[in-house]
């Protein structure tokens, strides 16, 4: 084959490979967006995941006007100033008067309860009789029950399906993991590049880091469970997950920081020493400032890895989608269980075959990770421009 043809073939292969790589990305991202886009909404982002059912007691003392825009199929109650409408198999609140007693509803423990449009009313108990609301219940009976003017107990369910608890747990995980792995990783890399004399000790450290980088995340999951959950008795918790991720991230942090430090020209160090500066001054004033772009890349890579990690968290942080809040004290606690976005996405597919929910979570993750990438690229560019 003449050189020209060989070149042509190679060139074609190179373009094809690049097209294949980008094509795959478009396919995977396209699939995720097509499957998950329909579920994306503000509620999806901020609602609780689990639906919450409440018994609320209501008294009404005035009559209310139905709004003009109400659709016929909606049932309106003058007594409570609220309209319900049958959606598939449950009745949903479609309209509420501003002063409706529902706004001041209290539950069995006399705590105020927030009831909003879209919540579903499952049952009404009034003057001794209880009426279940589903597609089989007779609509006149519902209206009659709604309009009986004495105390009424209503069973209201706020529909869940949101991923807010998972977002919070994931953010806490990122914080805990970075808080430990960044300092250790950076300091370790400084030792390896600036201090270490070639010899047995450095080889041992390098070999250990290589091993850590190679260990599959499922093995980290087992180790995390054994060490942090059981032996250190942290139990399944954000902290246990965070510590497991810390070790998992160490090699990435160390390697990227090492690369960043190596990129700093030796002449800078020589110049600094030549001016009588000592090692620490040289490090803090010259070497580290110009290595920051590289270190930032390491941090961003790690955040991306934390958000994407699932195997290492399966056995360490729990699977229940709730805010990591201590029930007694009511404030955030790292010792509480929580579940991350990816772990929940896996369980959605595994346990209920819910590909749409997993894809929707995937969309959120992609958006977060992509903005992180963009953000770090801008910073890196700004810093490198400032340096030379």
């Amino acid at each position, binding site marked *: 084959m003449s050189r020209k043809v060989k070149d042509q073939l190679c060139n074609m292969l190179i373009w094809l490979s690049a097209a294949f790589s980008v094509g795959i990305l478009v396919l995977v991202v396209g699939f995720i967006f097509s499957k998950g886009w329909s579920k994306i909404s503000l509620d999806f982002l901020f609602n609780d995941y689990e639906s919450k059912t409440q018994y609320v007691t209501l008294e009404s003392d005035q009559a209310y006007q139905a709004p003009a825009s109400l659709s016929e199929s909606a049932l309106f109650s003058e007594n409570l100033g609220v309209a319900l409408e049958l959606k598939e198999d449950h009745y949903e609140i479609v309209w509420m008067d501003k002063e409706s007693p529902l706004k001041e509803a209290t539950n069995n423990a006399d705590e105020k309860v927030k009831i909003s449009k879209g919540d579903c009313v499952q049952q009404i108990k009034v003057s001794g009789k209880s009426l279940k609301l589903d597609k089989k219940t007779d609509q006149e009976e519902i209206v009659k029950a709604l309009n009986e003017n004495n105390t009424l107990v209503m069973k209201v369910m706020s529909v869940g399906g949101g991923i807010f608890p998972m977002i919070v747990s994931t953010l806490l995980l990122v914080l805990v993991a970075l808080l430990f792995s960044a300092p250790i990783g950076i300091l370790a890399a400084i030792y390896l590049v600036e201090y270490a004399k070639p010899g047995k000790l450095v080889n041992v450290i390098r070999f250990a880091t290589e091993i850590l980088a190679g260990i599959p995340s499922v093995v980290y999951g087992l180790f995390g469970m054994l060490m942090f959950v059981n032996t250190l008795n942290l139990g399944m918790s954000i902290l246990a997950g965070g510590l497991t991720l810390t070790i998992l991230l160490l090699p990435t942090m160390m390697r990227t920081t090492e690369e960043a430090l190596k990129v700093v020209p030796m002449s*800078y*160090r020589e*110049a600094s*020493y*030549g*001016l*009588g*500066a000592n090692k620490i*001054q040289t490090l803090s004033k010259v070497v580290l400032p*110009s290595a920051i772009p590289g270190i930032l890349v390491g941090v961003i890579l790690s955040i991306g890895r934390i958000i994407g990690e699932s195997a290492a968290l399966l056995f360490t942080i729990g699977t229940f989608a709730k805010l990591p809040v201590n029930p007694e004290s009511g404030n955030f606690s790292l010792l509480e269980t929580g579940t991350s976005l990816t772990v929940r996405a896996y369980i959605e597919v595994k346990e209920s075959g819910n590909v749409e929910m997993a894809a929707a979570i995937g969309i959120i993750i992609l958006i977060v990770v992509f903005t992180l990438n963009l953000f770090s690229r801008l910073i890196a560019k700004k810093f490198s421009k400032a340096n030379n």
Partner: protein
Amino acid sequence: MKPKFSVSDLNLFYGNFQALHQINIEIPSNQVTALIGPSGCGKSTFLRTLNRMNDLVDTAKITGNIQLDGENIYSDIDVMKLRTRVGMVFQKPNPFPMSIYDNIAYGPRCQGVKDKQRLNQIVEDSLRGAALWDEVKDRLNKSAMGLSGGQQQRLCIARAIAMEPEVILMDEPTSALDPIATKKVEELMEQLKKKYTIVIVTHSMQQAARISDKTAFFLMGELIEFDDTNKVFTNPQDKRTEDYITGRFG
């Protein structure tokens, strides 16, 4: 006149390769001493022993004795202090990726000088001392990377002067510069000679003849001859010096 550096029986090994053999030399103060010789003859290595820059090379080992004003610099002394007394300018200009001002102020700041006024004064004096003040005085906070090769080298000289050293070591300072910039740096050295002892490694024998008072000729890690520059260039004692100077080899 007491010598600035008195070097006795100096040997240097990189691992098991011996780079310097039994060097004995007395470097006079407030004069320019040139070190010449073919590449790889150990002149740069010798220069770097004077401010212990070779410590950065793990495999380097030194025997013998170097006295700066009578004090052995290889005893247990503060190497940082040594390097503030013995400044250095490298072959390739290596300004920090910072502003011109910060480059000059770097050394003093490392030694704990914080007062703004004093720093401004040091920066101005050093830049004037390096004949660079007029060219950069209105863009002190611009990045030093924007300067030309010659300006960058003079900036490095100014940076060294800012430490108020007693000696300035120059490792082929002009080999990376064009002729005009080289001329400027050489004129500068004429000024510097008055205040500082200068030891310069150079490939160009014309440069050595032009600016140096004394010249030392190195060959294969040995000091062959060391004398007044015009004596070394007009009637060298050792045949090997004569061959090198007349360009027969090297």
